[in-house]
């Protein structure tokens, strides 16, 4: 039976947008009607939306892109060293979070992290020296995202740092991230005190080599399975990684005890370090996300958001259909809860590549899975659930592996469609940490932020310009 004769065969089931009176009069006749809370699209995107609808390729392109995003099987295969895995990295190169940035526009925590990394690399002997050299252009800055990599907060990655190598078990993609230092006075939050530098040295001398040896004896670790389990144990994969880190450590435990070639005291140090850092897995979750995001990029006419990232100054996004172009707007302030006596006065604007988690259906999008951190969303589990439910409006799929028990194991909303963002005004909800704005401060809190509408509006206009 054809679609049209099917329509004429029974009573209509109607969905409406616009005047409520029309929906009412259908109800009055006892027929079934579902209303929408429609609003006009973001001003300045009307023509782009119409062009995309007329072009006709968008829907299928988005399906292709999100399928690619979901098809990757991220595996942690090794821990290597930055200079060995990034061919374009010179001894003076520093990768950073977010869209491209120059020193003169860099925020406090970004400057702090670069200063710390320069001291760590032996390129400067004091913060003052580092600042002067950076200001003279003696270093090269490049976004992590341009090199298949991601880094939380400042995301600063320098040549000597150990990096996790995450490979696609179902394809040939590879993504990288630094290893997580822990909370507090750490480089990624812009701290450059000796304590932070010492920790970095320990990480490249002990943590990296031990993990590499252990992974070699144990074999690759399936990250997606750990993340999927952790969502059912109260993690969101961004602001809460306690469960996934615990699972990871269990998984690694046997090989860590067996020893590979590493001395026992070093293996014990590694065990304690991971155990003492609830966010150890964050960087690996991010690299797993980057793998999917890279796989989804480059599909013509697709409005899928492949990247959301911030450098402390700008918030930038990329779309599958516009390739490597960034669409940026000022990084917004974070609505946060603060540590100790810090307040929002001490906070730097939003920073970090960790929004890759929201891009792949975690973090703010998986809030309903993480009742332990509902304090960020008004303190109720219902608030967390509403937050996740709202994201289905702007996403293209439900994640086949990342499921939320409280939603009857519905998959998390995944694959942000920029077209739906500008049409509905619903902005991606992000869970994030907050860095102190004065270089050297470190972490001051954690909270929530919304991706700026302006990025999506620009991106949609650019996408429409790529259509014939």
């Amino acid at each position, binding site marked *: 039976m054809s*679609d049209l004769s099917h329509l004429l065969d029974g009573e209509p*089931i109607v969905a409406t*947008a*616009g005047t409520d009176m029309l929906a009412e009069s*259908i109800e009055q*006749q006892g027929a079934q009607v579902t209303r929408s809370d*429609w609003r006009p699209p973001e001003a300045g995107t009307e023509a782009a939306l119409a062009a*995309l609808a007329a072009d006709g390729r968008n829907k299928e392109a988005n399906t292709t892109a999100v399928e690619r995003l979901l098809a990757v099987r991220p595996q942690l295969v090794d821990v290597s060293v930055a200079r060995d895995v990034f061919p374009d990295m010179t001894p003076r190169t520093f990768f950073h979070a977010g869209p491209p940035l120059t020193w003169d526009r860099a925020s406090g925590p970004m400057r702090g992290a670069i200063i710390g990394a320069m001291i760590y690399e032996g390129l400067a002997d004091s913060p003052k020296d580092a600042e002067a050299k950076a200001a003279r252009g003696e270093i090269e800055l490049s976004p992590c995202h341009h090199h298949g990599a991601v880094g939380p907060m400042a995301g600063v990655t320098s040549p000597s740092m150990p990096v996790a190598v995450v490979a696609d078990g179902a394809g040939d993609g590879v993504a990288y991230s630094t290893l997580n230092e822990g909370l507090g006075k750490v480089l990624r939050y812009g701290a450059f005190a000796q304590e932070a530098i010492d920790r970095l040295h320990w990480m490249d001398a002990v943590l990296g080599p031990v993990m590499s040896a252990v992974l070699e004896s144990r074999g690759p670790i399936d990250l997606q399975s750990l993340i999927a389990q952790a969502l059912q144990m109260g993690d969101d994969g961004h602001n809460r990684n306690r469960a996934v880190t615990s699972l990871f450590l269990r998984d690694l435990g046997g090989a860590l005890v067996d020893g590979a070639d590493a001395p026992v005291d070093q293996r014990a140090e590694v065990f304690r370090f991971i155990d003492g850092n609830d966010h150890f897995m964050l960087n690996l979750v991010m690299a797993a996300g980057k793998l999917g995001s890279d796989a989804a990029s480059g599909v013509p006419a697709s409005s899928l958001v492949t990247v959301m990232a911030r450098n402390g100054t700008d918030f930038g996004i990329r779309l599958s259909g516009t390739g490597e172009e960034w669409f940026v707007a000022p990084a917004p302030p974070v609505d946060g809860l603060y540590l*100790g006596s810090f307040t929002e006065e001490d906070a730097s604007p939003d920073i970090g590549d960790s929004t890759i988690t929201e891009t792949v259906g975690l973090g703010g999008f998986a809030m309903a899975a993480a009742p332990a951190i509902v304090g960020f969303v008004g303190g109720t589990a219902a608030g967390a659930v*509403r937050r996740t439910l709202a994201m289905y409006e702007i996403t293209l799929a439900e994640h086949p592996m990342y499921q939320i028990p409280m939603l009857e194991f519905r998959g998390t909303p995944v694959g942000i469609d920029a077209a739906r963002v500008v049409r509905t005004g619903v902005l991606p909800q992000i869970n994030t940490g907050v860095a102190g704005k004065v270089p050297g401060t470190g972490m001051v809190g954690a909270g929530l932020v919304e991706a700026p509408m302006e990025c999506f509006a620009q991106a949609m206009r650019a996408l429409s310009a790529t259509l014939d």
Partner: protein
Amino acid sequence: MIARVEIHPGRYHDSVRLMQASKALQNVEGITDALVAMATELNLSLLADMGFDMDAVADAGPNDLVLALRAEDEGAIATAHQVLDDALTHKTAPSGGLDAPDPKTAGSAAAVADANVVLLSVPGEHAFVEAMEALEAGRHVMIFSDNVPIEQEISLKTYGGDHDLLVMGPDCGTTIINGIGLGFANAVEPGSVSMVGASGTGIQQMCALLDDAGVGVRHALGTGSRDLSEDVGAASTLQALEALEEDPATDLIVVISKPPADPVAEKVRQAAAACSKPVVVTFMGETTLEEGAGEVLAVLGKPPAEYGTWPAANDDHRPGFVRGLFSGGTLSSEAQFVAAPILGEIGSHEGDEGHTFIDYGDDEYTQGRAHPMIDQTVRLERLAAATRDDSVGVILMDVVLGYGANADPAAELAPLIEEAVTAGAAVVVSLCGTRGDPQGRDAQAAALNTAGASVFLSNAAAAREAARLATARTSA
């Protein structure tokens, strides 16, 4: 100033909850500094930075809760303990279900309900994107909105045609599917007559006439006011005609349109002729809806109908021109088509000399207002103005009933009709409604008639009567 550091061994709370609790403590009057946290290395270093005595926490570990307070007095510390206990044992009422937020687009609403028709009345410039989304999801679309660019209409109808999906509109006022009206529609009895119409009020008038003659209606598929233009080429009309031909419960099909472009009219006539079921084609401007309804009755083997008429008690009136005040565009143009041979030239804009028939449903008169079928304010004003205008002898109005229309139009009109009749003008009403309409057709007719109007179910009959009154008086 008192500084206090306490350890609560083994009392675990999530760090987020503890940050909230710290915030609550900081807001307690008399507390100048507060931290409640698990005694991790990070938190202990924060504690040290805040200047608290670290001796008390020397043995604390990450599974122990530490509370540090700096307060003006013991009272504040006691209050802080209370606040902390509240914060950490705080229980919120059950969330009351996991309600999803309202869908934000018709497409999402349709997905929730698995709807088969998406009805759009968003501003015309935004309708295309919503409509295309609905079509791409395999749903039929009715676009009530007007001001949709014609190339977008063509693009939608091309897609719909290729995918066996019906695009009703843009500017589609009325559709009835299996007796359920979408947009402005009258309550119809079940029947075997189906319609395809490029005109909403044309469909409504046909429903009203057939209903009065005891003929039921199955479907009435609106196609939008421009469907029979040369550019659109009757795309939806032909598609709907074909679907109705296949519909086993439809025995007779009526096609209704304002005068179409010539080559398009020919195409529609050919399709009608090729149809295996009888098709009555009513192109207004060539014929009237009353004549169309007559043809339907003839095909069905029924006698010609005497459509409902409620004559005014007194048709004596002052001399003058006919002033037509319409809410339905099709009713207005049909009335002109009928009356022009009798009255001669008829203006269609306010300020025109002589007889004028004006469509107050036109964009020109609806800026910032609902359609005059819903909001009669403008027509009520013009009715009063016509009463005061000595050059007007006959006032001709349509009153459209049905779902979506004003709940009781006669109640608003009656006092003004009385005034008009008292002032010597004749009032003729074309009442477009069915017996089942929620407003109550006969009660509306009675109220209008009691106020002094002549009421006709047939729009053509009302127009003839208005013209007759005006000329009878002129020649007298």
